[in-house]
């Protein structure tokens, strides 16, 4: 992944609009948060392979990281704190935000094909 180019990501978001797409959306602070710090809370959520079609989407800079919103016919998809992106070899738009130690805090990924259970088994 590399730091987000707003122009490049916006272009990709536009090209995936009004199509059936699969979404992976996730946020997490890890399963050990309250183990290592009893003041902390374990929170997280993910949805993998939500099949949606969005009317339009936008990436907005917050100075440092970005928010992304996708408008659905009857709802929204939203992520805050993404800072890195990649358009991978399967032409999927992968976005994520990491903490100082490189740990994933939030991810939003959009693909025209379903996300698989794992990466290619023979990779």
């Amino acid at each position, binding site marked *: 992944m590399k730091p987000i180019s707003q122009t490049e990501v916006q272009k990709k978001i536009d090209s995936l609009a009004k199509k059936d797409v699969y979404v992976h959306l996730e946020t997490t602070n890890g399963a050990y948060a309250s183990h*290592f710090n009893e003041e902390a809370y374990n929170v997280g959520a993910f949805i993998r392979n939500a099949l949606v079609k969005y009317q339009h989407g936008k990436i907005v800079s917050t100075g440092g990281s970005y928010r992304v919103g996708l408008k659905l016919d009857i709802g929204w998809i939203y992520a805050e704190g993404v800072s890195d992106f990649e358009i991978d070899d399967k032409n999927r738009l992968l976005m994520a935000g990491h903490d100082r*130690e490189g740990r994933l805090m939030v991810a939003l990924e959009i693909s025209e094909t379903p996300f698989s259970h794992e990466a290619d088994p023979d990779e």
Partner: protein
Amino acid sequence: MSEEHVVVIFPHPDDESFGASGTIAKYREKGVPVTYLCGTLGEMGRNMGNPVFANRETLSSYRKKELEEAAKQLDINVEYLGYRDKTLEFEPIEQVASHLKEKIEDLNATLVITHYPGYAVHPDHDALGAAAVEAVKKIDSYKRPEVWMHAISNNHEAELGEPELIYDITPYWEHKLAAIKAHLSQADGMMSLLNNQPEQLERLKTERFYRYSFT
């Protein structure tokens, strides 16, 4: 040819290295075969390397390769159970237990090492540990392996007392460190965490297990 066979059952690539690799090394030194039944590929892990080199979609490939390297360091076999990271507790425990029972019997396990259900912090640890205990319960007592359980939670000793089996694995520390470091995407995050909390690092040099009592 040894008649013993140690079967380690944990959900994530690296659980074996952090939790039991000193004990594993000790058994390997004696010539006892060790098989790691790895529940998932750790594909939902938070550590992506530091600096980041993996992403959510490639992480499983990296972790598989890392486990292969750790397995080489420890000279053990690995089999994957094919579940998905973070979802084990939502699978029917009976199904997972039957799956494990078959594997344990096929391997003629004499010892199963797993997590202590309810005291293992990560929900996958608790769920797979519970399924492993269930699996061994179903095996006829004359061929039933021992079950040693690894507890992690901060409260475990207050609630369970001191574990019966306490191994100083300092003689195998080099093996353990090599195995941990093979998990490149995960080790850095964990090692820096451990360096900030020296008591956690010291804890890695002792491996402690509770023996499950079937009676």
